[in-house]
């Protein structure tokens, strides 16, 4: 009784489109891939060149200055523990991946967030795309990333960027939109141009919210590291992935806990940057 409706060729369509894109643009993405990969390797090499104890002191000092003594001590102990577990190199690799991904995410997310806040039409286009980016299971991105960027850290960081940019965009837009109306009016009343209003009033006022968005982006990027390890990103995620394949629960937890510690350090430090701004303390 049920008429046989032919299956809508969604998968086929996407494959054809991606094939076409790969065929025509892989020269560009491959070149990009080499460049990013070189940057990542250089940073990792640089961080590994510094003796771990010195790096731990530096990071802990930064934590102390930005977020207070407790965070400073926690940072030092956490990193010493990671070193002791012989996980120093994967930690540095993961940190670098998160750093690069976050920088790219912010570079894309901040201008997009500003545009979405100031322009209703942009907002109407961007917001559904963000929903799509955030709800699509993250490792689906990995599949097409490989033909474009090859196996390894670059594909992983591209997938990570796609997955982790939305909070920066959303919270930048939110931060700008929630600047009180009377401050906007005051800026206008004194003859500010749009640019002056943005840089002298809207962005400075939005800093705490934007920092919360960047903090979320960092956390999401970290949560991608295990998934990214499936395409050879290495790092702490690689250790976890290895433990899964060899059924070594102890090793798996070791690396898992290392990720948690790294996440807490990054979270505590970046959270404080936004909270300490003048705007936040005035509220």
């Amino acid at each position, binding site marked *: 009784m049920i008429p046989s409706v032919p299956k809508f060729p969604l998968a086929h369509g996407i494959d054809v489109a991606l094939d076409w894109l790969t065929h025509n643009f892989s020269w560009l993405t491959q070149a990009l891939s080499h460049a990013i990969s070189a940057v990542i390797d250089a940073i990792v090499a640089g961080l590994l060149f510094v003796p771990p104890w010195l790096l731990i002191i530096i990071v802990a000092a930064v934590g102390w200055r930005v977020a207070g003594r407790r965070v400073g001590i926690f940072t030092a102990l956490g990193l010493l523990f990671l070193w002791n577990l012989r996980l120093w190199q994967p930690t540095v690799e993961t940190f670098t991946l998160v750093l690069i991904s976050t920088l790219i995410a912010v570079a894309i997310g901040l201008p997009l967030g500003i545009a979405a806040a100031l322009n209703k039409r942009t907002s109407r286009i961007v917001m559904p795309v963000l929903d799509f980016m955030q709800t699509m299971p993250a490792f689906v991105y990995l599949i097409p990333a490989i033909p474009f960027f090859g196996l390894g850290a670059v594909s992983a960081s591209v997938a990570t960027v796609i997955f982790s940019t939305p909070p920066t965009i959303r919270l930048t837009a939110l931060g700008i939109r929630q600047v*009180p109306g*009377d*401050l906007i*009016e*005051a*800026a*206008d*009343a*004194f*003859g*500010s*141009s749009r640019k*002056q209003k943005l840089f*002298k*009033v809207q962005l*400075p*006022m939005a*800093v705490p919210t934007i920092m919360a968005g960047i903090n979320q982006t960092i956390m999401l990027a970290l949560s991608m590291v295990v998934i990214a390890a499936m395409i050879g990103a290495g790092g702490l995620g690689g250790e976890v992935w290895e433990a899964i394949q060899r059924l070594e629960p102890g090793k798996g937890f070791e690396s898992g806990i290392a990720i948690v510690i790294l996440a807490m350090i990054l979270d505590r430090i970046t959270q404080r940057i936004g909270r300490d*701004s*003048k*705007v936040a*303390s*005035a*509220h």
Partner: protein
Amino acid sequence: MAKIKVEKLTKIFGPHPEQGLRMLDEGKSNADIRETGQAVGIADVSFEVEEGEFLVVMGLSGSGKSTLIRCLNRLNEPTRGHIFIDGDDITRLDRQALLKLRQTKISMVFQHFALFPHRTVVDNAAYGLEVQGLDADERRRRANEALELVGLDGWADSYPGQLSGGMQQRVGLARALAVEPDILLMDEAFSALDPLIRRDMQHEMMQLQQRVKKTIVFITHDLDEALQVGDRIVLMKDGRVVQIGTPEEILNNPANAYVERFVENVDMSRVLTAQSVLQRARVVAFPNDGPRTVLRKMADENYASLLVVNRDYTLVGSISAEVASKAVKDGVEHIESLVEETPSVTPSESLMNVIGILADWRWLLPVVDENNKVLGVVTRAGVLTALAENNDTSDSEAERSDAA
């Protein structure tokens, strides 16, 4: 030429303002227009502000006063009508010229201060100068001058969040004054302050105005405040002007029942002056009058005392019936030596102060000009009658409108 001239200014909010304009011209009410999704902000408002004048626009919330003041610097874009500043129609300015106008000629003070919390006090005060593109030294110098003007020197490097409400509004005022504008727009500038601070600020604002001589358009919903600070008052209701006049004109000749109802709650003794209860001194005594003459003058007019003046009517003092009749018995020739020292007031003295003086002074209270020349007298009965009359009209008005 008027500094600001507003001509048939109309502002309709909503997606189809031209529809609202058409209905307005057909004489439809605000409520009818609101049903179509448009809202009348202000309708056909015209008035002029002279250079250096302190003009108060007064009305209840929803009367259109905030819309009006925002049309003057085009934070609200007028739907129809013209605004001339120094003769130039600012409704025709393009965006660049409009920004220039806002930067240099008109500045604004806001009800809730609208200070930038991420900037220090001095950087707030310098905001307008920064927008103009002045260099940092010049900005800081002029911002500090403005802060000094409002009594906030020494607070330059604090943040607004660390200041009390009254001080925050001084920063708002300094920010507006720092650009040295011709025109100050003050939108309920003191309404968010508590009553005592508010009175201080009103007072200081008036003193400041003596020094800086700006043209000020001041919005308020508080009639006492309007009467206190305004040279003239524009009274608004439902987006329309109900009456324009000096405080005295509005109080003594309310244009209609609406204004009258507004006025009825005013404490008349603060508003009325000695001038308004001044009576002619029907008879006076001279220093070389004899006591009998004086007594006869009193008897003629049924006074219990007389003012004693020189021939040019400058005040000498007073003499009471008691003293005069004693002088007759004692055989005193001239009353000169018996004159009592007498308090006096000027015509602009408020009735409240007059009442204070009359509490201790039983006789006629002379009203004198700056040369001590007697213009007339104020009596206790006269003051009470004036206050009673003003209360009467408001009471009967209230009854009338209650009945209606």
